[in-house]
């Protein structure tokens, strides 16, 4: 599978023209109307195309090889393959002949679905890729198939209705004559009109040949022999290396105190001051690091963040959620929660806390930018979740039009939210100064200490129940610094709970926060699910049965919950010293329920998750094994964040620096088994990448409650915190 051409994720078609190679056919689709047109190329001919009007989803060669263009960032979630599967399914392609390349950066055509049509930003985020492209790419595949059938019908002089397709071939139903897709390339012509293919004329899910089947991922072979090109791996002739020391307190600005000394560093090309740091450029990366280590910088005073202490802030948050004179942003208000709680048989009122989290992508941030000698054009390579935003950011630095920046997206060594723009913009500043290609690399320490984090939060949960423990009212107050990251994950569509009120109370610490896998769901689902379990525990009701009671009228959700209970043999007790905890979550229209089995080392306070079971319903699943991989990955990252991970600030400075003090889960602490079950569905696909992670906070706390009778209310559940809870 390894060939020269498959090693790079870079695009081969450019914004300015579609280079038609000898004897190949680009089935190109006009943006907006999605009317496909043919592009026929004679040998060696280049066809110039107006970039505003036309671009390609698929390209077919004479030998039948089909290139499908991938509009999304491939960061491990596998959508590069899944999107191609969607097109190939309706096109009835022979999967063995499919090749995938990254699409060029043209958001007008390749951008996300935005109010029903493609053409939004080219951003890969929010687990929106499959659900956002599904219907449009099925249509693109179906129309491409129509074009091939139209041409075969012309050639054979038969009506198109007498034809069908089989993988890679058009077949005449009447005489079983066949023509491969590749053969059609030789004579194909543009049909006058391409119909919009109606849903009823597309494949029915029971006839899917590729969707829902286990197909290997396109990128996997390249990731086992070292040939996959990440941004970090890009080599450009004449390239030099950049490194930057950035503000230790966000918002402070630098003054370099020892420029002359730094300039003496062997191999130094230049020193580049930035608003938020000092950059150095050198002939090798190790020389750049040496120069960086020499930098003596005086940082300005007065940044908002400089008095921020994250351990102390919980006291403020506690006051915020108990101060009746405050009124934050109302997130949900059904019935009359206040009165329902006031008149309840019994009430509960607890707080849950979540520290800041760091993404810890294995590939630190980096970018290669090559600004032309005249500064009027640039070429750039990076792994980003939003290539069009990176392209624009580089253009802004250079004060040129984005069309003058040729941007190549690369494989991302982890995304997990917010991996975009700033490294590209920084590299553009460095390259603009030295007018040579610059590879900017963030060290692990840079990446960790100048991270943008999942925000800290405190959640006050209140509930009132009747004599049987049934919820009568529910109030949830969230305190934290970032509405877009903390105001989600509020509705619990899978539980019937009357009289709910949820409010977000905001403050600002002047530190950097950004999307982190599952966003609001990690903290908010933890608070909801742990609180529910504590109520069930107090009411002496089995936590599975307690949830079940609230799902009796919700069959879709009950199916998921019952499935996971069956998978883990919920009613059978685990081995001595072990306990199970259950939790539910959702994400982007998908639903899940999970169970963990834990043990506890009472000397160290260390929790160990041995087994995890999860069932999910995400509609049609394009790549089932990859969906399972996403569930597994979210579970492992979830356990890691719940047990180990914490970023703390003192005087505005991040206290951690590398994996010794920001420990992410290692293999020895990973579950021995993870069992995932997909609930079959023919509904349109919904989200996968962020679905399982939010289960872990609640499920682990709930297993701990079962095991010890004590609640865990502050993530992460480090040994130290667990011991304090056990003693308390």
């Amino acid at each position, binding site marked *: 599978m390894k060939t020269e051409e498959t090693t790079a994720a870079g695009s081969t078609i450019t914004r300015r023209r579609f280079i038609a190679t000898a004897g190949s056919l680009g089935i190109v689709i006009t943006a907006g109307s999605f009317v496909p047109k043919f592009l026929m190329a004679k040998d060696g001919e280049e066809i110039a195309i107006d970039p505003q009007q036309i671009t390609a989803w698929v390209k077919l060669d004479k030998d039948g090889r089909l290139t499908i263009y991938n509009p999304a960032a491939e960061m491990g979630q596998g959508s590069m393959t899944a999107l191609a599967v969607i097109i190939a399914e309706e096109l009835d392609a022979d999967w063995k002949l499919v090749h995938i390349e990254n699409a060029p950066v043209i958001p007008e055509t390749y951008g996300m679905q935005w109010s029903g049509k493609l053409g939004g930003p080219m951003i890969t985020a929010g687990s929106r890729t499959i659900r956002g492209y599904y219907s449009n790419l099925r249509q693109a595949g179906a129309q491409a198939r129509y074009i091939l059938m139209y041409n075969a019908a012309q050639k054979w002089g038969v009506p198109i209705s007498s034809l069908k397709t089989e993988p890679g071939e058009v077949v005449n139903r009447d005489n079983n004559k066949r023509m491969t897709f590749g053969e059609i390339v030789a004579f194909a012509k543009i049909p006058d009109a391409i119909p919009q293919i109606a849903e009823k004329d597309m494949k029915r899910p029971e006839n899917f040949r590729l969707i829902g089947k286990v197909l290997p991922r396109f990128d996997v072979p390249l990731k086992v022999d070292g040939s996959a090109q990440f941004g970090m791996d890009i080599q450009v002739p004449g390239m030099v290396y950049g490194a930057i020391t950035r503000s230790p307190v966000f918002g402070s600005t630098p003054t370099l105190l020892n420029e002359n000394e730094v300039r003496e560093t062997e191999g130094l090309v230049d020193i580049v001051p930035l608003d938020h740091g000092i950059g150095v450029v050198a002939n090798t990366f*190790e020389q750049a690091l040496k120069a960086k280590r020499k930098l003596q910088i005086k940082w300005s005073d007065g940044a908002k963040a400089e008095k921020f202490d994250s351990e102390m802030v919980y006291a403020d948050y506690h006051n915020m959620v108990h101060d009746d004179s405050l009124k934050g942003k109302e997130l949900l208000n059904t019935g009359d929660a206040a009165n329902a709680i006031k008149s309840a048989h019994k009430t509960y009122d607890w707080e849950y806390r979540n520290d800041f989290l760091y993404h810890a992508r294995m590939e630190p941030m980096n970018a290669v930018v090559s600004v032309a000698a005249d500064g009027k054009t640039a070429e750039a390579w990076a792994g980003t979740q939003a290539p069009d935003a990176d392209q624009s950011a580089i253009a802004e630095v250079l004060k040129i039009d984005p069309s003058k920046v040729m941007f190549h997206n690369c494989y991302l060594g982890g995304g997990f939210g917010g991996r975009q723009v700033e490294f590209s913009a920084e590299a553009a500043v460095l390259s603009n100064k030295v007018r040579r290609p610059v590879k900017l*690399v963030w060290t692990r320490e840079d990446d960790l200490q100048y991270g943008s984090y999942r925000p800290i939060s405190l959640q006050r949960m209140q509930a009132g129940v009747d004599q049987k423990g049934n919820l009568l009212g529910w109030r949830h107050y969230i305190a934290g610094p970032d509405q877009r990251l903390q105001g989600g994950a509020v509705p619990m569509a899978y539980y019937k709970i009357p009289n709910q009120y949820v409010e977000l109370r905001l403050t600002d610490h002047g530190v950097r926060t950004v999307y982190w896998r599952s966003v609001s769901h990690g903290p908010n689902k933890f608070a909801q699910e742990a609180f529910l379990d504590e109520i069930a525990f107090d009411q002496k009701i089995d936590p599975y049965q307690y949830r079940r009671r609230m799902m009796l009228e919700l069959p879709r959700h009950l199916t998921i919950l019952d499935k996971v209970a069956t998978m883990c043999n919920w009613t059978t007790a685990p081995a001595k010293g072990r306990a199970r905890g259950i939790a539910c979550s959702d994400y982007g229209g998908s639903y899940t329920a999970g169970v963990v089995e834990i043990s506890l080392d009472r000397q160290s306070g260390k929790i160990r998750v041995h087994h995890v079971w999860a069932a999910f319903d995400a509609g049609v699943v394009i790549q089932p*094994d990859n969906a399972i991989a996403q569930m597994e990955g979210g579970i492992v*990252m979830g356990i890691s964040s719940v047990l180990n991970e914490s970023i703390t600030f003192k005087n505005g400075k991040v206290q951690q620096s590398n*994996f010794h003090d920001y420990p992410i889960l*290692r*293999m020895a602490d990973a579950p021995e088994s993870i069992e995932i079950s997909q609930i079959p569905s023919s509904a349109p696909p919904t989200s996968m990448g962020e679905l399982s992670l939010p289960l872990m906070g609640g499920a682990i706390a709930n297993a701990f409650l079962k095991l010890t009778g004590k609640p865990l209310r502050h993530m992460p559940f480090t040994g130290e915190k667990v011991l304090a809870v056990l003693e308390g």
Partner: protein
Amino acid sequence: MKTSFKLNGKQVQVETAPDATLLWTLRDTLQMTGTKFGCGVSLCGACTVHLDGMAVRACVTSISMVAGRSVTTIEGLAEKELHPLQEAWIEEQVPQCGYCQSGQIMQAAALLQANPRPNREQIVSHMNGVLCRCGTYVRIVKAIESAASKSEKQ
């Protein structure tokens, strides 16, 4: 400083600073980018290569330490098409983002060389130094077990 060593079976000579590391020499001077930079201080294992058959972290291996010795990277692991571990990695669809996987495979290959049929505990203990943020650990264990059992059958 000139240093000669064997890289993936071929003799090479590089000109570097005396304190250059094997990692950046491989990546930048020799353009062998399969070996990854992850932490720079031997905490993550993304840069794992073999030095005379032993798994080492290239980020803390100085170039002077490899003089006259034999270095194997992910690019040179397979003698023919693919190493049994690489085949198992594909079979189990292990990688997600893939950035750590060169290091994972090189670490696992050193294990199988020393112990062709490791048990689960030995696998986990040997592999524990190589981090994966995507959470592919369960599949890594399966792939190593599968590769080990296949080579035993042959």
